[in-house]
């Protein structure tokens, strides 16, 4: 006999009503979840289906407007590398400070506020700041113009807080006993950090770096006014840091939209989208792989 039965027929009826509502809402939850996953699969699937046919070897290796993306591929990788160098150095160092050194205090509070502010800032704002700082160099004579270095440094500012956050997670995941063992052997703080904690956090750092790389590759708004929207021009395949503009894959998709969308442009657009999605999914899968693989190695199981 149930407890509700003792409280008379109205309580039993209410209980029944609640049971029905529970069942109804459970169904609703399944429907919502299914819908959202379906949309996700649709976005990826539709892009692949629409664009995959146009991704040919010629498309990947030639440099004509809308018919080839070799310059954009090159620029994407080049800007990624350029931006990751300062980002890794500063991001990991700052993370070491917060995790290993910092005591609760004003500096840490201001730093937290800074990272939260920067991560919630619209990327176009950071892009325009990059324009001011790097493209015009405050209107001084030393203008860099639209250039890949300007774009890379802007992306570094934009993603630094994310890099720092993932590095912090990686460092925190290192068990405290490793630090204690290092100290017990007489190592100094710096030795402990550089030789014990940092190597042990490597899987997390690699994973985090790959995920941030995905963000860097996909960024558009911050690049339009820093590395520029210039399409393929002669001499794209050079390493000039300044004065040579370079559009990335993501910017290229936007440019093809902004300059009148012809059918040819749309084909180029979807094909470029395929390449971009494959790159980003690849980075994400690689990140997962490293997470599991190296994680197992370091945890010793």
């Amino acid at each position, binding site marked *: 006999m149930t407890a509700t039965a003792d409280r008379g027929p109205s309580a039993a009826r209410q209980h029944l009503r609640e049971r029905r*509502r529970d069942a109804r809402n459970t169904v609703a939850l399944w429907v*919502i979840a299914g819908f*959202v996953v379906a949309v996700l699969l649709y976005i990826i699937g539709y892009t692949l289906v629409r664009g995959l046919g146009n991704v040919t070897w010629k498309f990947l290796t030639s440099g004509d407007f809308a018919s080839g993306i070799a310059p954009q591929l090159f620029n994407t990788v080049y800007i990624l590398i350029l931006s990751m160098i300062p980002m890794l150095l500063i991001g990991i160092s700052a993370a070491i400070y917060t995790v290993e050194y910092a005591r609760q205090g004003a500096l840490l509070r201001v730093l937290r506020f800074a990272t939260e502010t920067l991560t919630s800032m619209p990327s176009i704002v950071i892009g325009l700041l990059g324009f001011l700082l790097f493209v015009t160099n405050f209107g001084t004579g030393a203008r860099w113009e639209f250039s890949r270095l300007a774009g890379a440094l802007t992306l570094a500012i934009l993603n630094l807080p994310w890099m720092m956050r993932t590095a912090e997670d990686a460092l925190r995941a290192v068990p405290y006993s490793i630090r204690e063992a290092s100290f017990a052997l007489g190592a100094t703080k710096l030795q402990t950090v550089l030789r014990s904690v940092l190597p042990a956090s490597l899987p997390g750092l690699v994973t985090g770096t790959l995920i941030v790389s995905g963000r860097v590759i996909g960024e558009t708004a911050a690049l339009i006014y820093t590395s520029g929207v210039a399409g393929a021009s002669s001499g794209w395949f050079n390493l000039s840091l300044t004065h040579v503009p370079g559009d990335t894959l993501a910017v290229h998709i936007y440019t093809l939209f902004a300059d009148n969308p012809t059918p040819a442009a749309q084909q180029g657009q979807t094909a470029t989208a395929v390449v971009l999605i494959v790159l980003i999914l690849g980075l994400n899968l690689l990140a997962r792989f490293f997470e599991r693989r190296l994680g197992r190695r370091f945890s010793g199981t």
Partner: protein
Amino acid sequence: MNTTSIPAKRPRLRRGTIADASGRIVFVASALIIILAMAMVYYFVGSQAYQTFTQSRLSAGAFFLSHTWDAEENFGILYFIIGSFALVLVSLLFAVPLSLGVAIFLSEAAPARIRSPMRKAIELFLGIPSVIFGLIGLIVVVPLLRRLMNFLAGGIFFNGFGLLPAAIVVTFMILPTIATISYDAMQAVPRELREGSLAMGATRWQTIRGIVLPAATPGIMTGVILGIARALGETVAVAFVIGNSQRLPIGLTHFYPYLYLGPTSVLTTQLLFNFKEATQGSTLYNALWTICFVLVVISGVLVAVSRFFAGRRVYK
């Protein structure tokens, strides 16, 4: 054990001290660089924005309260502010129920073997760049809405661009943010609370409504605020579908009594489309920097609000 019980004659680690000190300086300096980056945003955007009212002699009233923007003499951003807020509102209207549904499903209802792959799929959403969302909006959502709205209106009145497709696109961009943070907040609610509720005879839904959601509310609010920040700052994806028209997004059409979320402009797309025509020192240039400053201030306020909710979290 007490640290004072360690003998006073601790071995001094002399060899490491200089390296140690310089290492510490490098780490602190890196942290300072990040703080400097934030300070630069406020300082440079702020000082550029200030010139609108000094160098270009625009009055604050003519800037914030006027809706005429011709990029030559009139620089009123009222419609763009309204457009941005309308975009955030309509997106939240779609995104909050959907993401809460996903989060509740994942946290409370999903079988274990669905939960993990689905969570990973949602996280994958976070990695998809905004330009892809914009493209999908352009080649899928806009034509779909064009056909649907013209069918409903019984004539060719709509081109499918506007606030509605922008809100749909933004919905799916902020959904993973809100869903994952809400999910984490729900997971942080102790199991004992749920067990207590179920033991009292409550159904699962009553437990969710009465126990889990209230306990997770501050965390959910943090997610929603971050979603608002992302919706407000989204530029490229919105630019693909917003229609770039300087008028109010909301209104009844002349000929048809439907609530019409039509072509408009928001703060971010206005920046994107206009900045290339702005020469340094012109009024347009300064006015665009002031739009930037408006965005910076709003996102600063959002950070403050999210900190308020973070401080109210009971379960972490």
